[in-house]
């Protein structure tokens, strides 16, 4: 039988063989056999994945160390000296240098020094505002809609609607709404509060955050609504008997029992906001005066407007590193918590 070890053939042999040898066969090598079948089953997926995702990603990684010449269709290593060592990391250095503190944080304050750091600033600011508000907002809306209120289905649909809208569409809609002569200002003008929200560099990023929130709260709401269904009613009753009033029950029962939802929502929100692109591009094309140039918008412009593919690839991998570190540590923390229980 050993000749057939690990092959599908052994199945057939085993099936026609005696019950005893079949048992022996199963005991001998179930793992190899099952693995092979398993590999065959995932093969199409692996092939497609490698061809269209993994391969290009790997190639982009190579690209990030090259000076790509669009016309020759060839890249040459982007050599540079780092502490006297010759390394092909010019794209990375060009992206990162000067470091923010080297010009007295000028690149954080203004897009005129180093666009990468300015885009990082924009993205971090966007994330820092959007993620917590989106999460808390989604949670509160879910909480409100989880009760017995009239027309809650209508509200749910209303909050979820933006999620179904493409980023481009919502970006354009908000661009109109917040335009200097848009609907928003028509409403604010009588109050003397009209302002070119979308077209002033001072407010464009805040306006973008608002769009992000508008789109994100509904999505998080759905996740939280699902999470809320999983909290046993008895916990609330126990808390009522223990003397917790409405908000204390939210604090001591609802919020901590949504641990898994929080994790999921946070990771998705952070990854999502770090990669905000569609709405930023459609809303203001990264402007005005770079105010809404986020990291991915910058990558896009570097690659497809400036045609600096190597440089853009290096930016993409810097972003990837940030998002990866984030996801990984959040994952580790989650793992540790799991062990604790």
């Amino acid at each position: 039988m050993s000749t057939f070890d690990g092959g599908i053939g052994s199945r057939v042999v085993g099936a026609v063989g005696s019950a005893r040898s079949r048992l022996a066969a199963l005991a001998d090598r179930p793992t190899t056999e099952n693995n092979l079948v398993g590999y065959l089953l995932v093969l199409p997926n692996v092939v497609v994945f490698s061809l269209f995702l993994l391969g290009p990603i790997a190639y982009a990684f190579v690209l990030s160390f090259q000076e790509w010449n669009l016309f020759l269709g060839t890249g040459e290593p982007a050599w540079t000296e780092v502490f006297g060592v010759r390394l092909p990391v010019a794209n990375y250095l060009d992206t990162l240098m000067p470091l923010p503190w080297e010009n007295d944080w000028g690149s954080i304050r203004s897009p005129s020094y180093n666009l990468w750091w300015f885009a990082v600033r924009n993205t971090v600011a966007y994330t820092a505002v959007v993620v917590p508000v989106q999460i808390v907002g989604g949670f509160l809306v879910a909480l409100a809609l989880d009760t017995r209120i009239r027309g809650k289905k209508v509200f749910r649909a209303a909050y979820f609607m933006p999620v179904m809208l493409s980023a481009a569409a919502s970006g354009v809609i908000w661009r109109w709404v917040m335009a200097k002569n848009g609907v928003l200002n028509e409403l604010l003008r009588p109050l003397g509060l009209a302002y070119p929200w979308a077209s002033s560099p001072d407010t464009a990023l805040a306006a973008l955050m608002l769009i992000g929130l508008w789109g994100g709260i509904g999505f998080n709401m759905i996740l939280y609504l699902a999470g809320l269904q999983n909290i046993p009613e008895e916990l609330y009753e126990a808390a009522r008997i223990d003397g917790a009033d409405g908000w204390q029950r939210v604090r001591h029962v609802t919020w901590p029992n949504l641990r898994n939802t929080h994790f999921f929502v946070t990771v998705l929100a952070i990854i999502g906001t770090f990669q905000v692109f569609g709405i930023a591009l459609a809303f203001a094309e990264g402007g005005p005066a770079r105010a809404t140039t986020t990291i991915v918008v910058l990558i896009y412009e570097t690659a497809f407007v400036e045609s600096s593919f190597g440089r853009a690839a290096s930016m993409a991998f810097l972003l990837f590193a940030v998002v990866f570190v984030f996801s990984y540590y959040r994952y580790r923390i989650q793992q540790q918590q799991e062990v604790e229980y």
Partner: protein
Amino acid sequence: MAETTLDGVTKRFAGDDGEVLAVDDLSLTVRDGEFLVLVGPSGCGKSTTLRTIAGLEAVSAGAVHIGDRDVTDVKPKDRDIAMVFQSYALYPQKTVRGNMRFGLEMTTDLPDAEITERVADAAELLDITELLDRRPAALSGGQQQRVALGRAIVRDPAVFLMDEPLSNLDAKLRAEMRTELQALHDQLGATTVYVTHDQTEAMTMGDRIAVLDGGRLQQVGTPMETYYEPTNEFVATFVGSPSMNIVEGTFDGEAIQLPGFEFPLADDQREAVEAGLTGETVRLGVRPEDIVLTDETGPRTVEFETLVVEPMGNENVLHLDHEMGEVVATVGGNQRVRKGDRVRATLGADRVHAFDGTTGEALFNRTRDEQRPPGVVGARGTDDRAETDGGETG
């Protein structure tokens, strides 16, 4: 510690097809320090009744008193109660200590040291001191059960409410916890209302049992009372395992005519039937252990064919066939009856119950004769156990 009274409590829920009556005009007094078991099949309203005491459900009509207080409209936290849930309902993010402290922190302004001490005492009582810093997910079912109890105990409430607290445990652990809960109750002497669907649990744990069906209270009494003196056919068949056999017949003024068998009545039995019967049909009840195999023949002996024998070890459960229907009898575990055997059995004259065929009310019950078994050589302290068993008419 306090007496708890339900007075005409009614609870209606809005259902899909109009209102559902979950508890129907239920009045019940739980005595101070008593362990009262609410028992009944699922949907009988026992949990709802418990929750009206807890204040988790508002009553539709009626009143709830704990001690001297009318708590009908009082919030759960202010009712001076503690509750143990079927799923334990421990806060997963809090340690055992945190779970036990929480109620005291929320409802009292006890100093921290006092809370700590009470938690430590309760933990020691329940033997969970070494678990205090763990989180619920790291505990076994039995340990979680103890923590849930501990959380109730630290509150030092007037009434303990327990909603099927043992039903999530495996059979062996359940039996252990049963004993332990009784011991704990004896030690704390706290008024306890305990809900279960398991009549064995009810029998073994309750000072008294309240049997519910269809939202109505059927009978309140000691376990022995509900067993030997059921007020109606429902209680008779619900309490005891295997269930009481019921055979339908008619009363002809002298005896009860059953299919293929005439059961003669004693004088007092006949008088009871004459006094109570509303229609013609009488339903005769006899517990499996009261169907006694015998060699002799007599007016109350019947011959059966054995359909099935279920050996339980300590006894064999016989499913017997007769024209009157299938009846269940039990014989000693060492008495071998085979499937297909023809057996003769006698239904003891004073061992049968009779129920009104129309209303289900008991017409007469079997006589109760209690003896102290040999080997009882004395009692410890006040003989309260015997007193309880001695029975009170509910």
